[in-house]
């Protein structure tokens, strides 16, 4: 907890949740996306339909799901289907507006690695792998990313491209996505513990908002390239009392995500 009365993680989760204000159908990834989307559902987006890759459409979890396959996402849901149908009829059919992902490494164009650090055959660190991320990145209409910044995570070149972002830039990405008939337009926002990044016309991420207490020096110190910063850089409004109450009392009372 900082002097501001909220932690960096709490700010990150609140900022990520607010980005979902206009989304209708969101595919919820494991970890931080899970808590951010559940916060959005309780605040800015009460009509948000949550899709869990485990096979749930229209979840209404009575508690924060402990994993993306928690029984609380089933009880009271609109529909429970096989994973073939979830990935085929919902995601691949183009019914998902936002895919919300975490990442171990990301590059300036929003390409994501969740597979290995180091060489694939002889990895320094073996990460979980794709799960549904690869097809979410391709088939969700847009992709939101939530992750903490560090020189090890915001890298010049990711060690393995698990899930495509804007590839080598917007022009190439748009051409390939159009030619290949992808549903997805690619990543549109990255929310970190320091700020909010959107993607500019070249397909590169640009810092549009800095969280209260964070500095541009901190941003530059936790990113491997010289970042683009908006000429009209905003300060993210701090978490509201209600957002903090929901995170602390309902969604993460154990402080697993917000420590």
């Amino acid at each position, binding site marked *: 907890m900082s002097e501001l009365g909220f932690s960096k993680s709490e700010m990150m989760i609140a900022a990520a949740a607010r980005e979902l204000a206009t989304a209708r159908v969101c595919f919820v990834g*494991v*970890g931080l996306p899970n808590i951010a989307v559940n916060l959005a559902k309780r605040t800015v987006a009460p009509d948000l339909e949550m899709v869990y*890759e*485990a*096979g*749930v459409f229209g979840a209404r979890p009575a508690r924060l799901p*402990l*994993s*993306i*396959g*928690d*029984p609380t996402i*089933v*009880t*009271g849901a609109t529909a*429970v*289907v*096989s*994973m*073939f149908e979830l*990935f*085929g009829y919902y*995601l*691949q059919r183009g019914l998902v507006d936002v895919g919300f992902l975490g990442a171990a490494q990301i590059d300036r164009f929003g390409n994501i690695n969740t*597979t290995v650090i180091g060489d*694939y055959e*002889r*990895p*320094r*660190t*073996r*990460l*979980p*792998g*794709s*799960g*549904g*991320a*690869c*097809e979410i990145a*391709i*088939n969700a209409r847009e992709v939101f990313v939530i992750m903490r910044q560090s020189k090890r995570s915001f890298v010049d070149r990711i060690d*393995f*491209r*698990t*899930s*495509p972002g804007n*590839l080598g830039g917007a022009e190439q990405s748009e051409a*390939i996505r159009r030619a*290949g*008939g*992808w*549903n997805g337009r690619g990543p549109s926002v990255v929310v970190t513990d320091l700020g909010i990044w959107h993607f500019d016309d070249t397909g590169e991420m640009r810092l549009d908002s800095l969280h209260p207490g964070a500095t541009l020096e901190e941003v530059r110190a936790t990113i491997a390239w010289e970042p683009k910063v908006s000429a009209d850089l905003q300060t993210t409004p701090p978490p509201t009392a209600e957002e903090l109450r929901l995170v602390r009392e309902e969604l993460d009372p154990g402080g*697993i995500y917000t420590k």
Partner: protein
Amino acid sequence: MTGKVTSMRDAVAALVRDGDTVAIEGFTHLIGFSAGHEIVRQRKRDLVLARMTPDVIYDQMIAGGVARKLIFSWLGNPGVGGLNAIRRRIEPASLAGEPPLEIEEYSHFGMVARYTAGATNLPFMPLRSYFESDLPKANPLIRPIKSPYSDEVLYCVPPLNPDVAIIHAQRADASGDTQIWGLLGCQKEAAFAADRVIVVVEELVDESVVRADPNRTVIPGLIVDAVVVEPFGAHPSYVQGAYDRDNRFYLDWDPISRDEDKVQAWLREWVYDLPDRAAYVEKLGAERIASLRPGPAPSGSVDYGSYR
């Protein structure tokens, strides 16, 4: 009402053979821990273990030395962290001269599509994934395929037909007609894809219970070789309506799994030194089990109508 009902010991002894490809499926829900432990206890060897999310059960099985290869799409302790026993068999820095665990990696939809191809007896299944990803480079079994109706190229995966699929479920009758509610994962596809099927259930019911609601049936006895009745056999994962995920277990596993000695000690205490699941449940204790019971949430009944 005996039919195909047998003990876990006999089912695993008869149906799981060294070198087999074994799929214990169940996506976060209905994970076949008791079957996995019996495979460790019987010291099966050289298995190819397939599973979308290897989870703690495959961390334990691979620590138990049963596997030579892993086919998967997401390798983690969900909501907690990594699967450390498996990582020690993959990362060169921790291998200490031993041969690494062979891996064959897909995305979730890729694994689902592999089982679906297996279940439908198709030589491949197309999907819109893997574009511009490094996964096809890492796994040459993920291949491009061109549409016969346009110039469009997408990817496909080959069928996965396990020698044995092991499925945990809420209930079955003695013939193996099996019903599941809650998350269905890819169990139906894995079972139809497999040559042999073991069903492990919380409850054995009369066939009239199954036949009262035929739309609820996920696996027909036609493809089932053995029915094992083991309440709490999915612990520490959960069974919709019966018990909750034991999250404490998943958290506790993380520090254990970081230390090979602790892992082997755990396997001795909870697997090798116990005869069966009943002993495991007793050792776990009534209080812990009671703490996992959910409140009621009935589905309600629908009418199929009697047509004579």
